[in-house]
């Protein structure tokens, strides 16, 4: 162990200070979600509600009939986007790492190029294509365009390049075909890489704002971030409701974060961001 240094308490003070800066906005929002409107309007700075109430949470579900629908829409979209990405990215990554086929280099270069193309660039043409397909305001219209992800195809390729060949050879001797080997032998052993994908893809889909904003114009098809925005427009200055709705939306993402925390930090160093 290192010896005691004068700087240690200073460093701890800085860390605690910044931890407070991080936590206070969340705590303040959580506190507002338990305060009645009168206490919000009075504008006090008490973190502990004087008249603690759960009514805000009840009210948003009863007063805003679409609120539970938005929650459901978000869940459906995030769930399917995650499942499809896990499947499709892993399949493509495996083919690019392990199989020999004409055109392989071309497809790999396309994936590498796609890594550099920001989503905003394809946004408007995507809207036009979905419009001509008649897929605006549908679940599949929002799910399918985001069902693959170049970053994670690339990550899965790197993962499968380092995967021990012996297992696949043994499976081949047992008479398993390529597809069977992939689904029954390889994929079950790829859990760490799949976990990293799960957390990033789920968070991305759950939190996405711009794409659903463009695709979903019908309020019944809003995902919750759009719903929250519409809700804010409607209940302006009803901060108790807005904060309660925000807290409900944040909870699932926090649960996933707490559960997959380890993979999250690893993933960031791989993807260099989101």
């Amino acid at each position, binding site marked *: 162990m290192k010896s005691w240094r004068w700087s240690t308490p200073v460093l701890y003070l800085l860390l605690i200070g910044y931890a407070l800066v991080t936590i206070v906005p969340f705590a303040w929002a959580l506190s507002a979600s338990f305060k009645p409107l009168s206490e919000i309007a009075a504008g006090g700075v008490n973190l502990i509600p004087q008249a603690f109430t759960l009514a805000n949470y009840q009210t948003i579900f009863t007063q805003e009939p679409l609120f539970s629908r938005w929650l459901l829409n978000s869940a459906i979209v995030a769930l399917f986007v995650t499942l499809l990405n896990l499947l499709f990215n892993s399949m493509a990554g495996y083919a690019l790492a392990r199989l020999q*086929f004409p055109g392989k280099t071309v497809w790999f270069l396309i994936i590498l190029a796609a890594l550099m193309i920001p989503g905003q660039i394809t946004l408007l*043409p995507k809207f036009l294509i979905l419009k001509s397909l008649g897929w605006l305001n549908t679940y599949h219209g929002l799910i399918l365009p985001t069902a693959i992800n170049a970053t994670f195809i690339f990550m899965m390729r790197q993962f499968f390049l380092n995967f021990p060949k012996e297992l696949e050879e043994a499976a081949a001797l047992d008479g398993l075909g390529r597809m069977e080997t992939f689904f029954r032998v390889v994929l079950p052993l790829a859990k760490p890489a799949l976990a990293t994908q799960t957390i990033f893809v789920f968070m991305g889909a759950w939190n996405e704002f711009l794409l659903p904003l463009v695709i979903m114009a019908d309020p019944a098809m809003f995902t919750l971030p759009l719903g929250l925005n519409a809700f804010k427009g409607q209940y302006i200055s009803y901060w108790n409701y807005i904060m309660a709705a925000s807290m409900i939306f944040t909870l699932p993402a926090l649960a996933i974060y707490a559960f997959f925390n380890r993979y999250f930090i690893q993933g960031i160093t791989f993807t260099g961001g989101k």
Partner: protein
Amino acid sequence: MTRAMQVKKSTQETLTSYGFMAPTIVIAGVFLILPIVSAIVLSFYKVQLLGELSFQFIGLRNFVRMLEDERVWIALRNTMSYVAVVVPTQTILALTLALILNSQLKGKQLFRVIFFLPTVTSSAVLTLIFMWIYNSNGLLNAGLSFFGLPTQNWLGDPAVALQGIMMMNIWSTAPLFMVIYLAALQDIPESLYEAAAIDGANRWEKLLHITLPFLQPVTFFVVVMGLIGAFQLFDQSYIFSAGTGGPNNSTLTIVLLIYQYAFRNLDMGYALALTLMLAVVLMTATLMQRLLFREQQLD
């Protein structure tokens, strides 16, 4: 193996491979390659969105129009002032936090988990939380008046509205870059510090002559990521201003401008031309980053 068997085997492998690639090929074809091609083509057209889609070739007129469009320049100016404040601040903050967390302290895991909360929270929720804090009798103004500082109309005053977004985004993205710095700090060989210690270097000298030079490529990466983030800014401005970019265009960003032209003015061709300009900026930045990063790694 006979030749016929070999041919059969490789044909089969090709078929299997394309089976594995099929979903990616179809989705990338329809929602990536087709959009890019149509973005380039349609930026030379006037696209009518109302009712039936209609197209009219107008050559370079969409691009010429940009130069005379006052709101394009406002959005660029807002982006520049955002970059000037946010990029250096969040980079220095991320580096400082990473350096502190990297020293031998107990409980650094816990701090890392806490610091990371904003990064996993949706931009919509963060924006709403900050609007609640910024509101005229909100927490920030209460704090300011407690310290005897002047309070501000954070949401309604064009002079400070963008600063509100800047503060929020520094707060929410610095932890992400902190993690990237932390990973890079792990890669610095301990032997360098030991050698420096033998030469009698103190901690400050080690930081200045070993750590910071070693982190230089990461710093470059973080700065370019910050730049790209600034040009992509949308959600916060949209929610803050209810889609207007107001008050008085003070929170107007490039992507918000593109959104407005496409979906408020229904002027898809012009919006696509703006998108192409944005693409050139973003891809130049990314390409520069990749090339310089590779050069650094080859050294």
